């Protein structure tokens, strides 16, 4: 039998990790599992972070003080996605938006649904639509999406970061 010659071989590159969110984000996620959005405040510049990462990146200090925020806010920015992303179960077109919760100084990415796509705009007031309580876990996916509240828009200048 002649030995088969190979010019190449396939080498898999994969590693698995036990990801940890951080002490501060862990506290946030445990509250999310109870249906609460608990932000953290910088003791120096008073900026309010949600989701909190445990530090104020402007001041470089820990954000220990916690405060519960409502599940209402406004659209700080958005994009309408028309192209399907492999593995993503959401059917286009849909709205991905940066949501600024009332009382927060940063926004986070989430979906907006129950909306006419032509209506979406910066400053639009929105509220969270939660999954059934039985499905809650330690994830922001407890919120299915945000939907418009019909209230008057906020002035986009409120999104300017506090000095």
């Amino acid at each position, binding site marked *: 039998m002649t030995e088969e010659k190979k010019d190449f*071989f396939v080498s898999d590159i994969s590693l698995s*990790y*036990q990801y*940890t969110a951080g*002490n501060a984000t862990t506290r946030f996620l445990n509250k999310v599992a109870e249906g609460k959005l608990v932000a953290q405040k910088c003791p120096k510049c008073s900026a309010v972070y949600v989701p909190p*990462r445990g530090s104020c*990146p402007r*001041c470089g200090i820990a954000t220990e003080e916690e405060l519960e925020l409502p599940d209402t806010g406004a659209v700080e920015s958005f994009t309408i996605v028309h192209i399907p992303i492999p593995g993503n179960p959401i059917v286009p077109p849909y709205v991905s938006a940066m949501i600024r919760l009332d009382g927060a100084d940063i926004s986070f990415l989430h979906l907006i649904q129950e909306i006419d796509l032509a209506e979406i705009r910066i400053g639009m007031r929105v509220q969270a639509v939660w999954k059934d309580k039985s499905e809650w876990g330690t994830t922001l996916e407890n919120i299915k999406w945000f939907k418009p509240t019909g209230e008057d828009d906020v002035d986009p200048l409120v999104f300017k970061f506090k000095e």
Partner: protein
Amino acid sequence: MKDIYILAYAQNPIVADAKAANEVELIMPVVHQVFEQTGFTQNDIGFTCSGSCDYLQGAAFAFVEGLSAIQTNPPIKESHVEMDAAWALYESILKIRMGDAETALIYGFGKSSPGDLPFVSTLQTDPYYMSPLWPDKISLAALQAQLLMNKGVLTKKDMFKALTQSISNAKNNPNALVTAVPSEDDYLSADYLSSPLSAFDCAPISDGASAMIIGTEEAVAKLGQPKIKISGVHHSIESSNFGARDLSTSESIIGLGKKISLKSVKLDFAELHTQFTYEIPFIRGLLDLGNLDINLSGGPLAGNVMMAAGLDSIGKSYELLKNSDFHNGLAHASSGPCLQQNMLVHLEKIND
């Protein structure tokens, strides 16, 4: 050329598993400590540089997140090396020598517990010819250790001696992770992870962070503390192709010893970035260190935070000089498998 001094150094307690704490939460305490030691704030820092490895976190650009531990408003001059923070120190030294800064903050951090470190390290080898073969960090070290034993450069007894001395010295470092000295029987009868290395021969998986502040003569003069000067610093690297290296010696380390003029200095101690027991007698021989005290802090065998342990060698040398009658210390940092890249730092206490 401006003289550069170490002004402050801090190290987190080294732990085997920092659990939920993320890198930012590990970095913040040490950065705050070096500010406390100097009375500085971020506004007094001319240049900030960090050392870390994104593969440890398993996320691209993970080092950017680390910056959340630093005050960045108003904006700062900042850089990062995908290496041990000893090389972040080196970049900071260059920055100060260029006249671009008077002071620098350096920090290094590593959380190794979330992944399989020996294989995570593989991804730092050459990506075309080496990492697809998945040689793990311990096996590569074992290759060099076995070669050195075969050539009669060192013995298992030498390795045991290096281990017991290091771990006994770990009592000098309140942040050390390993402090239990094994018996010779336990050591010699331990199963090999990769012949001739057992778990005793390998630095422990560790999580932590360290930080340092350096500055010019003007900066150190204001502090009213012993002046610890970086009198010499050099680094050099060998090929990433193991086949092109003679693993039974180290051109890099021997060359650095000459560059840093070790022969003309009466050293009091050396802190070596030795992640495996065999590396201690190996480097002792290469640099002709005789009976010099090595790793009085316990060194990496007592706690080895990836991407910070090299900076720790320099930081622990600084602490030793500052708190004792010693005048001259040698610190070593390394990077890459089988001591591929090395840095030597000569630290000197300057009497006014």
